[in-house]
């Protein structure tokens, strides 16, 4: 039995997750990595991507937009603008957002705009990816 730690996932709208977990896999800016119990206290910046939570031997995947994850000795807290389970992701909206972002990418005017569009594209892409993983599993 793996060691457990307490995980909380908070978005501005709600507390998305609270509970004991064995590990989480996070889309960190410095590269994807996995946090287990007893991790060194750390703060990770994350980019939009798939978050995998393993609790009681079962792994679930969720979409997580840009945010950060704070690993403390007593608990781990993830903060993100949006976190969604695959069943809550609106696939059509994500696909539309992806097309829109791609269209914008083609004619972006400034560096700032490029960054914005890239982040939007990244979000749409991650949402679709999480959604499709779920569909494949079913």
């Amino acid at each position, binding site marked *: 039995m793996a060691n457990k730690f307490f995980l909380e996932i908070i*978005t*501005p709208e709600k507390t998305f997750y609270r509970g004991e977990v064995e590990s989480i896999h996070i889309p*960190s800016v410095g590269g994807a990595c996995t946090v287990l119990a007893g991790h060194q*206290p750390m*703060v*990770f*910046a994350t980019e939009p991507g798939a978050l995998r939570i393993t609790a009681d031997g079962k792994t679930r995947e969720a979409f997580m937009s840009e*945010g950060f994850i704070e690993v403390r000795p*007593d608990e781990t807290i993830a*903060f993100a603008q949006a976190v969604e389970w695959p069943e809550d992701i609106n696939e059509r909206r994500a696909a539309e957002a992806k097309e829109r972002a791609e269209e914008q990418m083609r004619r972006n005017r400034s560096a700032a705009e490029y960054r914005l569009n890239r982040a939007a594209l990244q979000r749409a892409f991650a949402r679709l990816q999480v959604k499709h993983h779920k569909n494949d599993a079913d």
Partner: protein
Amino acid sequence: MADITEIRHRIKSIRDTHQITKAMELISVAKMRKSMTKQSFSSAYFDSVRYTLKDILRHSTDLRNKYVLPRRDNRTAYVVIAGDKGLAGAFNSNVLGLAWRHMQSRPVHYVVTIGQMARAFFESKQQTVDLEFTHAVANPTLHDARGIMRDLLDLYDRNLMDEIYIVFTRMHSTAEQTPVMVKLLPIEEKDIELDVKSTYTGEICYDPSPAEVLNVLVPQYLIGMIYSALIHSSASEHAARMLAMSNANRNAEKMLDTLDLEYNRLRQSAITSELLDLTSGKFFSENSLRQKANRHGKSW
């Protein structure tokens, strides 16, 4: 007798106004409660963002982030948040007055308004409004805050201003709201106020680096500040309106009472004088009949 119709008119109009103010009070109560619950949802998130940001600023001294470094200090941008509508007591004039007074001490200033009343105020003062957001006040969403943050950062990136202040009304309780001014950019450690204390105070590593984490945090921090300012402002507006409307209700009730009394008194006196007319008329006609009869009797 013209009085009585006039009073009836006034009673009717006051009653109608009363109905409106009553409805407005109820609406304000509901809306205030709604924005306060929203605030409590988001505060956990943004408190932690503030805490982490402060922690990074405190422990990492060699940060070269452009949002942290101070600039020359004479071009100031003001983000002023007021309501879309009046009828909220002194709510709008308090916050606008504070912004206006501070602005006079600055050689160069830009004005960004959020809400119709703010724009109208600066137009009446002959102060050009550089940027305005009109939809964010009535029902602030994270999406609005994100849009405002993006535009502000864009202006700041183009080096048009040295510092950005946000002026809004902070809600302490339903009875007490105060206008406040908070510095948004550049971010300084001492400007970040904390409502929470973290349970862990040891040293924390940042991955990939404090500067990278800071890059992610700064927009989040700004969104949080703007969002909470919007929500505080809208909750304050509704609280102020609620108070103003409950005063209006009380006044209307008082006026209705006195007018009702006056109306009844006038009506009573009208009836009395009418009765008097009738009886005196009857008395007169009876008298004249009798006199006629007497006269006839004599002549017969």
